[in-house]
């Protein structure tokens, strides 16, 4: 009897927390398709606001996607070999590897504002670079690189790379052949988890991007901040709705990927 009571109290609390997280999401989705949110649903449903956002902010959406994909390419090219080095150099247990791992996390540990200010102080005078989307890309790459390296490294450490490679080498495979034929296929689940994380983070990155952007290089979250500040609530909501539609597939993919790779290693 007392146990039942305790169960329902806890359930009610859990539902309350859940409502705190989910209700605003639903409300903003609703507001994005309501004619006048202040009046309520009775004012009618419309796609007018979504259309208006599409007209005004479409470039920010494409720009965010381009940056996220470019960021993915760079973190793949730089991060996967780096994870390989961290896993294999001196048997994966060297002071250098630990130092690199530690340093790589710094841009995540330190607030994005500081990273962005540092980039501006160092490269702000290079006008063309400062005004291009490469400036934002650089910030995103630095911030997301550890999220590629960590899951890949975790998978590499848990699979017996050294033995597999030794077997391949004894059969005459060269270093590059081993890297592409043994290492990458074995680390595939980590690469997938890292890739989804990198794209999700890049699409939603604001703290660094806000300082790095120029009026001509607005990304989606920058546009969101702009819309929240200067547009009516319905427009901000419609814009948020578009953002949700972009990241929800990524989030679902991420949950699926972590569940799949959780069976192999604990990330």
């Amino acid at each position: 009897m007392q146990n039942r009571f305790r169960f329902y109290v806890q359930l009610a609390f859990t539902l309350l927390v859940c409502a705190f997280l989910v209700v605003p999401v639903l409300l903003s989705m609703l507001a994005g398709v309501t004619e006048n949110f202040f009046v309520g649903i009775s004012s009618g449903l419309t796609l007018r606001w979504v259309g208006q956002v599409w007209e005004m902010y479409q470039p920010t959406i494409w720009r965010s996607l381009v940056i996220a994909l470019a960021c993915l390419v760079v973190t793949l090219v730089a991060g996967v070999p780096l994870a390989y080095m961290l896993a294999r150099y001196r048997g994966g247990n060297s002071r250098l590897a630990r130092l690199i791992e530690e340093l790589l996390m710094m841009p995540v540990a330190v607030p994005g504002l500081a990273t962005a200010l540092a980039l501006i102080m160092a490269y702000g005078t290079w006008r063309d670079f400062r005004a291009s989307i490469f400036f934002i890309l650089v910030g995103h790459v630095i911030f997301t690189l550890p999220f590629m390296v960590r899951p890949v490294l975790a998978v590499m450490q848990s699979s017996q790379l050294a033995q597999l490679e030794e077997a391949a080498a004894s059969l005459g495979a060269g270093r590059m052949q081993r890297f592409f034929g043994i290492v990458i296929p074995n680390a595939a689940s980590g690469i997938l988890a890292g890739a989804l994380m990198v794209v999700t983070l890049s699409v939603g990155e604001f703290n660094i991007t806000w300082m790095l952007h120029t009026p001509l290089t607005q990304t989606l979250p920058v546009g969101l901040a702009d819309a929240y500040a200067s547009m009516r609530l319905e427009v901000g909501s419609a814009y948020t709705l578009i953002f949700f539609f972009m990241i929800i597939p990524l989030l679902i993919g991420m949950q699926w990927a972590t569940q799949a790779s959780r069976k192999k290693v604990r990330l």
Partner: protein
Amino acid sequence: MKTVLPASPRPVAASQAVWLWFAVPGVTLFCAFWLLPMVRLVGVGASGPQGAMAYLAVLTNRHYAASLFSTLALSAVVTLATLAISVLVGLFLQRNRFAGQSVLLAMLTFPLAFPGVVVGFMVIMLAGRQGIIGAVSNWLVGESVVFAYSLSGLFLGYLYFSIPRVILTVVAAAEKLDPSLEEAARSLGARPWQVLLHVVLPALLPALMSSGAICFATSVGAFGTAFTLATNIDVLPMTIYNEFTGYANFATAASLSIVLGVITWAVLALARSLTGSGVAAAA
């Protein structure tokens, strides 16, 4: 790793050096676009009229000290509240099997990847001028309660992005608990709250410390949420932003952001050395 023939130490050293080549692209990017700019930022921080004393200004200047204090206090309160809520919810979800439980967990962790600006907007949806709290309170007592655009709104926002992350950690840590310890405590006559206090919480402590540190560090450095709610909320990231864009006071902005970075890094490093495990910082 392998037995090395004493006659050939050189090829071994060479084969180790080959690994280093794989690190070149990543390490180069990191040095060029983070390490060197950061070193530069430290220099800029000391280049103002006060020189290196600018790094002490965060304590000596009353305005900066106040904003540092409110940032740390707010983050500490958010961290404690998040930990309390997440332990209750996380343990409940891990201990009970019922219909819709996995849906609940998915919903609770869904906002994990929302950027700070979106979290700010969610707070506006809850407690803003057209928010649901205002509407409900207006209907109940005839007066709409609006608190999104202040420190309490910021508190709500930080809770919003911290809860999903900490719940995930609590659920994962609770899965590894040994149920026989709790049974032993119960069989010896411990009340449920005693079991929680003396058995469950100590076992969860490392997970709570590491996720609490992440939560604290993220709250200290968060910028997007405050930016969406109001630019006059007096927390350190907003102060830095205003110094930089409003007053073009580069040296102060640089020194304050270095101080902020050192604080968040130190909290994470401390938690990691105490728990002895890898504390992954948060997005």
